[in-house]
């Protein structure tokens, strides 16, 4: 019986055939559900940072640098969970099916979208919001249009001034 064993194996191997994939010479099996690296559509991105809050591994980070705000995406840390694509309010993030990301230079793994911050309509300093964020808010909630172009400091000052005016403090002072 043991002598016949190798011949038995030949039969089994013949039935199952060749299972090896010819990967580099044949496209890999990638299902539609597969999640690869994300793609940020810079023409849609508003720089709100919702994806940064959702990112479990901090692969997406917001870097504030004076008047500019950069959305960094470091592929090397990304775990391809797709939460950023779920939370993006404008649908700028799409999950691609790219996975051949090997490189010998770690700088290649970074991608960056640079936004410019809006300036305050009152004092001219840069606000914490990007221009695209403001236009997005204005398009969604028209009521905010009167004070949305101001920075947080000017907004607070205007509110306090309004309050004082209501109580007759500024009015009384200027009259004197």
């Amino acid at each position, binding site marked *: 019986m043991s002598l016949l064993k190798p011949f038995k194996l030949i039969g089994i191997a013949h039935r199952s055939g060749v*299972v*090896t*994939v010819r*990967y*580099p010479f044949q496209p*890999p099996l990638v299902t539609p559900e597969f999640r690869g*690296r994300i793609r940020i559509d*810079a023409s849609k*991105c508003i*720089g709100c940072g919702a994806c940064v809050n959702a990112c*479990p*591994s*901090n*692969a997406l980070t917001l870097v504030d640098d004076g008047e500019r705000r950069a959305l960094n995406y*470091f*592929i*090397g*840390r*990304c*775990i*391809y969970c797709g939460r950023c694509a779920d939370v993006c309010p404008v649908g700028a993030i799409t999950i691609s099916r*790219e*996975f*051949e*990301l*090997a*490189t*010998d*230079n*770690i*700088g*290649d*793994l*970074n*991608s*960056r*979208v*640079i*936004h*410019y911050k809006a300036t305050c309509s009152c004092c001219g300093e840069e606000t914490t919001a*990007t221009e*695209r964020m403001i236009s997005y808010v204005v398009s969604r909630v028209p009521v905010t249009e009167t004070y949305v172009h101001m920075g947080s400091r000017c907004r607070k000052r205007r509110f306090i001034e309004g309050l004082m005016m209501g109580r007759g403090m500024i009015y009384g002072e200027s009259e004197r």
Partner: protein
Amino acid sequence: MENRRDNLLEALKAIRRSIWVFHLNTGSCNACDIEILDVLTPYFDVERFGIKPVASPRHADLVLMTGPVTRKTLPKVVNALRAVPRPRLVLAIGACAVGGGIWHDSYSVSGGVEGLKKVLEENGVEIDKLVYVPGCPARPEAIIYGVAVLLGIAKPKVKEEVVEVK
């Protein structure tokens, strides 16, 4: 410096059809290790390319490094990499090895291969070529592609992208 680069290119040419790999787990969750095992099974069958696992780093041409290099494994990793003959080739596989993964700011890890590099420099261990293979876990195809990039057969597909919004 120039001489060393030529030596490296020559060495890469010499091992192109016969790469002995050593699998070095530095505290990974085992997902990347399973993918590496996948590469070695008949389904992907990397012995087509002459890639063969060995049991000791002293026999290895290439180290497949997975995991975020935890504190416990750090001295062992340094010892293992010191035992690898020159040129030392390292393939950092998975999000943890490349950038620290979801543990990048944890107290108990040294932040993947980037943190490890500093420790190796202090200990006088030099890595001649390092290729990053991101993925969580990296697909078997991505690992094969990473080896091809290391040997200079394939060109890296990713490029740094900087888009400025007006």
